[in-house]
Structure formats: structure tokens, C-alpha cells
């Protein structure tokens, strides 16, 4: 029993990280812990994911790619595994930003933005893969509580401000829809496969416009509809190549960048004159 307690402690420590990350968004959510093990069979499953690298550099011609994440489940109950009652979610969540959703309306016949609703800490991307469609894995309350699924991504409207629309729910759903339309919020209901009793592989499709920055990869292990373990690690996505250096320069060295752009224009204008001189 003492040994089991030590393992459970280790698991809690392991689970501590994702829980803390979640608390930033929703402080009310109680930490999800593994159920106490049965006295006879010590069954504390653990889940781990391995990213072969902690950063991905995408080149300027990046047109989307498949991202494969490998993982392992420890202490698998062979019986339950044979029955296919273990399920896994793997999520890659992009950096968050404050965004605004705007709605056009007709004013004097002209279409212009009239209403807007701001949102705080919106994930720029959210890709989720699972062994089966999520509704077959756990109850909708559990899925909602853990933000599993595109429709469960927490979108927090900013309501303190004076500019708030009457139909916030419509704006929230439109924000979700626009993100999904650009493949930034996407579900892969059969994206996770067990390749052995304890090893699994998750495949996510990174869209061409994948946001840059720190992404969080999370994995959740469900046994018979109950969350038993979770883990997370981070993945940096950055741009590589000359284009990225240009982008960085425009953001951080903007004065020099602007002057260089003007200098370039002078040189090309002058060259054009010299090369095609006719007087």
C-alpha cells in the first residue's frame, strides 16, 4: 500500500502541470485526479507523450503538414485493453491572444463593420485527435469540463467593456466557425491509434497558417469513460528562412526596416533610369 501511495504521489505531481495550466483559464475547475486504485490490483495507468523535438521550424512555402506524436501508456490492464476500453485524446493547442469578432451590417446600402465582440486569451489553434469520436469516449459533461472537442474550447467574451453586443453567443459560435473554416480548430476523431498494447500514435494535420509560438501538446487517457491520467509538453513552432528574418525585422527593427525599404526604392528607381536611359 505504501508503494502504491508513492506511485499515486508521482502521478499527482505529473498531473500537476496540466492542471495548473488549466487553472489559468478556469480557476474553478477542480484538479482531475486518478481514482484510488483497487486494493488488490494496483492499476495506476500513466500516459506519456514523446515529441522528437521541442521546436519545429516551418519554411516560407509551408502548406500544412502532418504532425505525428508518439506516446506510451504504462501499467495497462491487458483485459481492458483487449476490450478496447482505453481511449486517448491528444491535443495541440496554439498560443493564446485577445481577438475581436466583427459583424458587418448594411448602413445606407454600404456593407460595413457595425458590431464587435472582444474575446480574451483565445487559442489561435486547437487540434484534437482521439481514438474514437469523443461522444463515444466520455460523457458530455466530462468533455466540456476538460475542453475536449472544438465545441468545448473555452471562449471568454470580454463583457466588462461598454461595447458588448446582445447576442454574444452568436459571435462566439461565429468565432469558432471561422477558426474551424481555416482548419485552425479541427477534430480528428480517429487520429489516435494503438500500435501495440502500450504504444500509441497520434496524427494531427497542421494547417498552412499554423500560428507561430509556443504550442502545448496534451494527452488524456480514459479508461471506460473515466479520466485516469494526463500529461503535457510544449512545442515551439517558428518560421525559418529569409522571410522570417524579414518578418522579425519589420516587427523589432521597424525604423531600420522602413528606411531600408525606402533605400531599396531609390536604388531600383535609379537603376530603372540608368538601364533604360533614352535621353
Amino acid at each position, binding site marked *: 500500500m505504501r508503494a502504491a501511495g508513492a506511485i499515486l504521489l508521482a502521478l499527482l505531481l505529473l498531473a500537476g502541470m496540466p492542471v495548473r495550466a488549466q487553472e489559468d483559464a478556469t480557476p474553478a475547475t477542480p484538479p482531475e485526479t486518478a481514482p484510488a486504485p483497487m486494493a488488490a490490483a494496483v492499476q495506476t495507468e500513466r500516459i506519456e507523450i514523446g515529441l522528437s523535438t521541442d521546436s519545429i521550424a516551418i519554411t516560407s*512555402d509551408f502548406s500544412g503538414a502532418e504532425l505525428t506524436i508518439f506516446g506510451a501508456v504504462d501499467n495497462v490492464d491487458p483485459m481492458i485493453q483487449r476490450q478496447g476500453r482505453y481511449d486517448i485524446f491528444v491535443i495541440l493547442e496554439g498560443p493564446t491572444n485577445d481577438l*475581436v*469578432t466583427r459583424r458587418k451590417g448594411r448602413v445606407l446600402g454600404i456593407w460595413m463593420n457595425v458590431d464587435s465582440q472582444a474575446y480574451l486569451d483565445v487559442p489561435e489553434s486547437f487540434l484534437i485527435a482521439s481514438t474514437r469520436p469523443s461522444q463515444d469516449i466520455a460523457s458530455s459533461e466530462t468533455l466540456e469540463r476538460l475542453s475536449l472537442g472544438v465545441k468545448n474550447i473555452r471562449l471568454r467574451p470580454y463583457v466588462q467593456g461598454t461595447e458588448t453586443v446582445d447576442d454574444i453567443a452568436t*459571435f462566439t459560435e461565429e468565432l469558432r466557425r471561422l477558426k474551424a473554416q481555416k482548419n485552425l480548430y479541427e477534430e480528428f476523431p480517429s487520429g489516435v491509434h494503438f500500435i501495440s498494447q502500450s504504444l500509441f500514435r497520434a496524427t494531427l494535420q497542421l494547417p498552412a497558417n499554423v500560428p507561430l509560438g509556443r504550442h502545448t501538446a496534451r494527452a488524456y487517457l480514459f479508461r471506460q469513460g473515466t479520466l485516469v491520467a494526463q500529461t503535457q509538453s510544449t512545442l515551439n513552432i517558428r518560421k525559418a528562412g529569409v522571410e522570417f528574418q524579414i518578418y522579425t525585422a519589420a516587427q523589432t527593427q521597424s525604423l531600420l526596416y*522602413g528606411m531600408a525599404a525606402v533605400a*531599396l526604392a531609390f536604388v531600383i528607381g535609379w537603376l*530603372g533610369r540608368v538601364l533604360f536611359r533614352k535621353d
Partner: protein
Amino acid sequence: MALYLPIAEMSVNIFVVLGMGAAVGFLSGMFGVGGGFLITPLLIFYNIPPAVAVATGANQVVASSVSGVLSHLKRGTVDIKLGSVLLVGGIAGSTVGVWIFSILRTLGQLDLIVSVLYVVFLGIVGGLMMQESVRAMLRQRAGATVSLRRPGAHMWIHKLPFKMRFKASKLYVSVIPVLALGVMIGGLSAVMGVGGGFIMVPAMIYLLKVPTNVVIGTSLFQIIFVSAYTTVVQATTNHSVDVILALLLMMGSVVGAQYGAKAGQRLRGEQLRALLAALVLLVALRLGYALFVVPDEIYSISRNFVL
């Protein structure tokens, strides 16, 4: 061949952009205008974000104006003093313009205002030019000689104080309308991404009565510096100058301008102005039409706003 634009954050076909630059360069060489008022709408039609189209358009205008002003300097058809006074106003106007540009962007109204300004200004200038050139053509058919400048006609503008002598333009005029014109063009340069030649040239001819031979050179001279200033300010405040896009446009337009200038020499002045007017009106109509069409997507997401 696809090329990724780092600031616009999208891929474009390199030949389409070069072709766009060449076509606009051809027209600007033919008509002696900077071409900014064509470049920016074309980029917007090609789905470049308007903020990037405007800022990059200003950058491209620098190159085509440098190219153009060199031959005018050689011929001595630049009034540097008049150009400098216009420039002082232009810098002030551009500063205010970029500031307004930023505010409009956070309010989500930039795209609309840019389109409306284009429709209004292109509509007015195109309409006036068309009217004037058609009249000139009719008059010429009747056998009369045509002169754009009627030096005897004095207006209220010439009664204003703070007069200054501009030798190269043979002009003795108050600095107030000159500065005001500069401010207006500077503001337009920032918000619309144009050099403003299409407004500057008629304003100098009709309002200030500057002789036609120095108008284009002087306008180009001041446009270089106002556009250069606008480019730098856009780069520092809005980070929206795409240097790769600008480079492609410049290369296309510099080459196109040479052939355009040759083609322009074969056409008569009034015909040239009527053609340019038709083109300007066409762009205005196309942009105006887009304002009234039901958009594909009513909702949009943006990162530019203030809480």
C-alpha cells in the same frame, strides 16, 4: 511560381505580381503619373490585406517617382522651391494620416474608409478629367487651339497673404494654399497609399496656376519624399510594409514605365487624358460596386482592437 510574402502572410504568384507592377508601370509611364492609385486597388482585388496594400503602395511609389524625377531634373522642369514648400505640408499631413490609419484599423473601419476614399477621389478626378479632355477634343475638332493655363484668370486663392515668389514656376502666390495642398496630399498618401499625383497635378494646374511643364516634375519631386516618409512611418507604427511585395512591384513597374513612356509619345494629350480618365473611373466603379455587394462573410476575426 508561388512566393510567400512575410508581412502580408500569404503566398502569391510571383508572375501575377510582376505583371501587375509592369501593367501599372506601363500606364504610369504613358500618363506620367505615379500609379499608386492603381497599385493599391489592384493589390486589394488580389486579396492582399488593405493595410499592407496601402503601406506597400507608398513604398512602390517612391521607386517610380525617383525614376520619373531624374529625367525631369535633367530637363530642368522641377521647381525645387515650390516642391519643398509642398513637402513641408506633406510631411505634416502624412503624420496625421498614419495616425488616423492606426485608429481606423483598431476600429475595424480601415478597409471601408480606404475604399470610400478611393471611390470619392477617383470618381471626382476621373469625372473632371473626362469632362475636360472631351471638351478639349471637341474644341480642337472645331479648330481652336487648346491651352490648359489661363494666366489672366485670378481667383480668391491669389488674394491670400504670405506671398512667396517661385521663380521656376513664374509664380507669386500665398504659401497658405501651397501648404494646405501639401497637407492634403500627405494625408491621402498615408491613408490611401498613393503618391497623390492624380490630385496634385490637377490642383497645381487649376488652383495654383503652375505652368504645365513644371507641374509633373515638381509633383514627382515632392511625392518621392512624402511617400518615403509615409513608408517609414507606416513601417514603424503599423508594421505593414511588405518589402518583398514592394520589390516585385518596383521591378515590374520600372520596366513597364519605359515602354509606357514610348507608347505615350504616340498619343495626343487630350486622348491620353481621356484614356486615363476612363481608367480612373473604371477603378472607382469597381471599388464602389464592392461596397454594395453582399459580402461572402459577414463575420470576421481581427487582432487589431483596443479593449
